[in-house]
């Protein structure tokens, strides 16, 4: 078993992974066909808004993967994951803002509308470069990555762990939220960045662009899954589990715990940033409420419900909870959604420590046992 190659373990021995990959492949092929090729009046037509909705869920799934990597495997409960997501989103939003050009309300080719409104004369220095798509993507990766590196380096070096880490990551996202709400910051204040027109010269409202963005999201999710999977099945993954279960034991084995934590924390932040960068062009707005600590805690519940420590569980949890949210907040149950969400937090932590995946596992194991028993016992009563 241990002689098998990494690739084999990555692809063949991971059954849920294979199912997930299958589903993603299906989505990549079917969604464009049913949206673009099937006529709009057909029963099988998938409307563009559904494509966007699915794209949004999948962005959240990437975010959930990122959190599961650090929480499920390394025991770092970051309540600031939403901040990295939002930072990635803002980087992409700034690019989209520059693409508006002189088509804004004020028709100013050099400044975004909100800066004209604030009577600013020139573009702040930190907006330079965001005219280029490549630069914006780089920043969507770099800004969350560097912030996570600096923050993580300080925190892990001083051995801030457990709930203390959770609390200060929450304070971090709270501080960022307050900062981005300020008009002086130059990120659109309260309203954030919105009214985007096009990305790389393609109209953001057109179905084709939406479908392309969706496909890119699916592929990113698949790649993120494999990255996380590779990390968790490598020896590094076992060191992470070791840190989660017995941090000081790991230290006495000679592993530099802070380096390991820092690496996965940065990877996780970068994944969150990428998810944010994919989210903004599909949703069409990014504002400071994305930094709300509530959002970051919600990510945790996706992972917890899906089943932490299993990457596919995190993806499943993100999809389930967000579908539930869309379903309930859209209908007459809108008022009950927060009750349901609150109850989910309570019930999952007390009764489903391993999430939906754990329940399914137990059920499958039980059935297998029953079948074995039945096979062993002579069948007499028919």
């Amino acid at each position, binding site marked *: 078993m241990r002689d098998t190659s990494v690739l084999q373990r990555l692809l063949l021995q991971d059954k849920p992974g294979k199912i997930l990959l299958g589903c993603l492949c299906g989505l990549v092929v079917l969604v464009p066909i049913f949206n673009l090729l099937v006529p709009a009046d057909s029963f099988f037509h998938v409307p563009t808004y559904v494509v966007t909705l699915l794209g949004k869920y999948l962005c959240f799934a990437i975010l959930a993967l990122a959190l599961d990597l650090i929480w499920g495997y390394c025991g770092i*409960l970051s309540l600031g994951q939403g901040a990295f997501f939002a930072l990635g989103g803002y980087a992409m939003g700034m690019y989209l803002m520059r693409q508006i050009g002189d088509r804004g309300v004020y028709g100013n080719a050099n400044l975004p509308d909100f800066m004209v409104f604030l009577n600013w004369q020139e573009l702040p220095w930190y907006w330079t470069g965001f005219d280029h798509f490549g630069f914006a993507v780089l920043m969507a990766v770099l800004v969350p990555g560097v912030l996570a590196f600096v*923050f993580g380096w*300080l*925190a892990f*070096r*001083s*051995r*801030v762990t*457990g*709930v*203390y880490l*959770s*609390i*200060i990551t*929450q*304070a*971090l996202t*709270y*501080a960022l939220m*307050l*900062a981005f*709400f*300020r008009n002086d910051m130059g990120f659109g204040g309260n309203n954030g960045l919105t009214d985007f027109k096009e990305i790389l010269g393609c109209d953001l409202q057109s179905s084709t662009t939406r479908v392309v963005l969706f496909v890119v999201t699916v592929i990113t999710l698949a790649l993120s899954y494999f990255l996380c999977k590779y990390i968790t099945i490598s020896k590094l993954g076992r060191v992470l589990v070791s840190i989660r279960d017995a941090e*000081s034991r790991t230290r006495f084995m000679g592993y530099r715990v802070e380096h390991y934590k820092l690496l996965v924390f940065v990877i996780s932040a970068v994944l969150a940033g990428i998810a944010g960068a994919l989210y903004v062009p599909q949703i069409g707005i990014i504002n400071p409420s994305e930094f709300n*600590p509530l959002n970051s*805690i919600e990510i*945790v*519940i996706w992972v*917890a419900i899906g089943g932490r420590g299993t990457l596919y569980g995190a993806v499943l949890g993100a999809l389930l909870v967000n579908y539930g949210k869309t379903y309930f907040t859209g209908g007459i149950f809108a*008022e009950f959604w*927060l*009750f349901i*969400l*609150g*109850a*989910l*937090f*309570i019930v*999952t*932590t*007390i009764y489903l*420590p391993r999430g939906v995946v754990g329940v399914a596992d137990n059920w499958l194991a039980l059935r297998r046992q029953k079948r074995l028993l039945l096979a062993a016992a002579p069948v007499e009563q028919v």
Partner: protein
Amino acid sequence: MNISLRLLSVLLCVCVATLCRADEFADLVVKLNGDSFSEKTEAVGGLHRLDDKRVLPVLKAMQDGNLFVVAEAGQIVIGKESGEGYEVQSVLDNSPLGVRTKSQLEKIKINNGLRRELRSLVAGLELSAKDPDIRRQSAINLIKNPDESLRESVESALGGEKNQAIKSLLHVALASIDINSTDTVKRKAAVAILADAVQPEAVAMLEKVAAKDPSGHYLEADTELASTAEAALIRIQTQLGIYKFIENCFFGISLGSVLLLAAIGLAITFGVMGVINMAHGEMIMLGAYTTFAIQQLFPQWLEMSIIIAIPAAFLVSGAVGVLIERTIIRHLYGRPLETLLATFGVSLVLQQAVRSFRANNVAVITPEWMSGMWQINGALSFTFNRMYIILFSLAVLALLAFLLRKTYMGLQMRAVTQNRAMANSMGIRSGWVDALTFGLGSGIAGIAGVALSQITNVGPNMGQQYIIDSFMVVVFGGVGNLMGTFFAALSLGVVNKFLEPFAGAVLGKIIVLVFIILFIQWRPRGLFALKGRFVED
């Protein structure tokens, strides 16, 4: 008609003296709407001679252009602008008469001469009013708008004034009139008086006298006076600096004591029990809503409502706390991260529950004895509600420290937290102690809610504003250390206030948050860390 009215009034005069006077008032008031300004002036003069407490409001309203005639009824009313028109009340008995639109009312016009007359009469009436608050307010108004023509009224009022504080205000008022006179002696005396005043207006007047042109010469012809004023200004500025500092400290400490109140409960649940209660903010919210409920249930005891609300909020939040502990947290001991998530779920449910009751933002009334302020001088005043909150938070802290250190219940709590198995074997029912400890922490959060209802809006989200701050305070001060919580709360409050002028409120808050984040990296166990082997792991 006028004649018949007069006849009637004469008749009534004979009958009852008081009624006669009342009618004279009514009579004169009607004349305020006379055809000519001279008639009006006469009526004003007549009213001024009456010793009737209704006179002042009428004259003041007339001066401010708030005296109206109701179009069809001819009734004279005082109007107060409100949403869609004017809220009017009768001048005769102050009874409210509902809201009238602009077209239903006709303003009683006055001319400049009458306005001057009115101003002097109103000032005179105010300065000689029985109510010291009216006299004080009048003196302050005079300092703000010095009026040469009122000099005599001020001087005569000064002669009769017994209250020292008002007397010094009147001196300043007189000086602010005199400073603009032509008499050198008067001006010199005025500068001397203003030099001891700290009102912003007084400072502005001195600045005017001491102003220089770009080449550095006084604009004032009387250079001796100007240099005296300048010297006085320098002294006043330092004095004002000190007052500003004291005021900042006061605001800082009051902000800190709000933080302290919000954080003390958390210091128990987090510090003593190691439980992360994300629903702590909602316990504060429940306390604030309890205050509201008490005011709604017993409107007749409004003045006492806060006092009643303190134990009530403690019981309500405490009971909810015990319930949460017994149903949820009990299953999660030793798993702090899970507690964090579960209690966050509780906080969502509680918030939504409050929203479902359509109690989104309610107004909690501040009782009379808590409003108002302690005016130390023109530049420095402390509001009562903040002073009460400072005292209250200290009292709660002291009570809690006493409870934990000196009572049997506190002993049990500490025993259970330090060694559960041993405490159990000594016959302590650790389950109950856990529930009570958690209830105590939650109950104190409820008390904090009572205090917070006096200074912020009460709404379903109010708890969220405080939860992160409270955690920061507890972590900054050192978990499990009440003294640390106390120092952390006060120092954060003061630092926040001193940052505000330079950085603005929001940026100041961000700076403080970032500072704490960095501080925790430096000293992970906070300001007053417990040391020793046992705190590791």
